[in-house]
């Protein structure tokens, strides 16, 4: 890992010196608000009961556990995407993209380095949100830690895979906000973070299945809430990691041309 570890160290140095506290507060606040509102709605409106429809489509009556896992996963996914997908456009904005591209280091280990640092930071942020959820009484039994760890790893691969083509799009069009928020809206709507995807119309449900987070979330919930062993979540894990690998491969193919477009747009004389 001649490039990944130095890149992870570089990002740690920079993050410790200029930690984006506003991002952190904003992200944790969103997660806390999601769980808090779900708590209020569940008790004040639902009277502590879920509908038969939710029970059938979501496969659980533990609405708060369902929402907490979804909110944690959404927080994890958005933060990871923000770190990894925006790595290169940030280099471009800071004027260091060309010095990166001049070096013989490959893109994948560079992005893995960014991803490793992002993973550790994001896990800490998600932990703060989960601590709040547990404090208000949400139960996350996770009886098989191995299944849960495998699910987290698969979701990590999936989010990393999704971030790479997004990075290529960002440096191609020279824009990050519209690109990232389009993905975030799509993920939030289609992947089942706060409600079961089965409640969506069929075309949207199929579209959601094309995003690896949908199967990753199923595996996460099964492992965290439903006492599922590794064997039971394995099909979803494979779909999640496999789709993530497909997005990753596509992204790596796109990155080279995208980088040249970015350099070209950077100026020629």
């Amino acid at each position, binding site marked *: 890992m*001649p*490039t990944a570890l*130095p*890149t992870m160290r*570089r990002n740690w*140095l*920079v993050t410790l*010196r*200029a930690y984006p506290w506003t991002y952190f507060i904003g992200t944790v606040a969103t997660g806390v608000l999601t769980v808090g509102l779900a708590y209020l709605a569940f008790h004040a409106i639902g009277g502590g009961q879920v509908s038969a429809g939710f029970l059938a489509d979501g496969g659980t009556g533990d609405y708060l556990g369902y929402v907490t896992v979804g909110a944690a996963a959404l927080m994890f996914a958005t933060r990871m995407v923000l770190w990894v997908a925006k790595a290169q456009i940030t280099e471009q904005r*800071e*004027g*260091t993209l*060309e*010095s*990166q*591209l*001049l*070096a*013989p*280091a*490959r893109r994948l280990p560079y992005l893995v380095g960014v991803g490793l640092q992002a993973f550790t930071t994001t896990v800490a942020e998600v932990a703060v949100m989960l601590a709040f959820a547990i404090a208000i009484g949400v139960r996350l039994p996770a009886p098989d830690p191995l299944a849960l760890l495998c699910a987290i790893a698969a979701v990590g691969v999936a989010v990393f895979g999704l971030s790479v083509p997004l990075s290529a799009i960002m440096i191609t069009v020279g824009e990050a906000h519209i690109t990232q928020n389009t993905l975030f809206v799509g993920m939030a709507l289609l992947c089942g973070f706060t409600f079961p995807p089965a409640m969506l119309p069929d075309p949207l449900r199929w579209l959601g299945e094309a995003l690896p987070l949908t199967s990753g979330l199923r595996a996460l919930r099964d492992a965290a809430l439903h006492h599922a062993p590794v064997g039971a979540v394995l099909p979803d894990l494979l779909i999640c990691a496999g789709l993530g690998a497909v997005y990753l491969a596509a992204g790596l193919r796109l990155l080279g041309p995208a980088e*040249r477009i970015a*350099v*070209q747009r950077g*100026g*020629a*004389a």
Partner: protein
Amino acid sequence: MSAGIVTHGLTKVFPPPSRLFRKRPPAPAPAVDGLSLAIPPGAVTGLLGLNGAGKTTTIKMLATLLRPTTGTATVDGLDVVRDAREVRRRINLIAGGERMVYARMTGRENLWYFGQLYDVPRAVLKRRIDELLDLVGLREAAGTLVERYSRGMRQRLSIARGLINAPAYLLLDEPTLGLDAPIARDLRGVVADLAESGVGVLLTSHYLAEVEQLCRHVHVIDRGSLVAAGSPAQLTAGTRLPYSVELTLTAPAPDATKAVEELAARAGAEVRHDTDPEGRPRVTLRHPDDLAGELTTTVVRAGGAIARVEVAPPTLEDAILAMAAR
């Protein structure tokens, strides 16, 4: 395997920007058009042209950052497209301005990180970082965050970054832009030493005196095409620009003045008479040949007493401006 950087018919056409719901504009003129160059190891080669001539595009293609539309470029026989990764190990690029380094890292951390990207062995890297920090005069500021550096300090760090992989070929795109005069002079010394040690250097600069001082060979491009090549002296001589010989007399000497007029008419030189700030008569001859010897002989034979003679040969800058005006 041919040594050096060699290009054959190198051409780059940038596609016009696409606009939604608008007709695509016609294809623009090439930024670089059929350029054939040779940059040997162990020498500084200049690449000159006016703004928009295609210098930076050429350098970015040689640095593997852009792909040629047609034509080839090789570095020690390695193709810049097909063997891009291997080419990157042998080259580096230093561009003017203070970017290309990380603002929230120290100077030493920046060099350490870029050394890792070039896979420089750990023991070598530590020694090289110290040497480079000394070379660019940043040893004392090595532990300071780059965001606290002055513009000149950032540019010096960028120069150290460009040398971190001990490149066999160095592409310098306006490297002294924004540098203080003493630092720019030191950098010129470094570039000359690098070339002496075998590094092939390609230099673009708006400071033509810098090019004249450093370059053994210069390529002049205009609108992406090669318009002239040769040593600075050859380029200057080729344009037949005038030498300017300025002779100051100690006192008015009508016979000498008349003899100078005759010399100017005979040689077809442009002549101008005036006085210097101390009120002494002064004559200036402008001619493609250096007429200093003939002028002084003529004045002395006509009984004139010479206070001062100054010869100003045409410079590379004069030659480039003359080529641009054609």
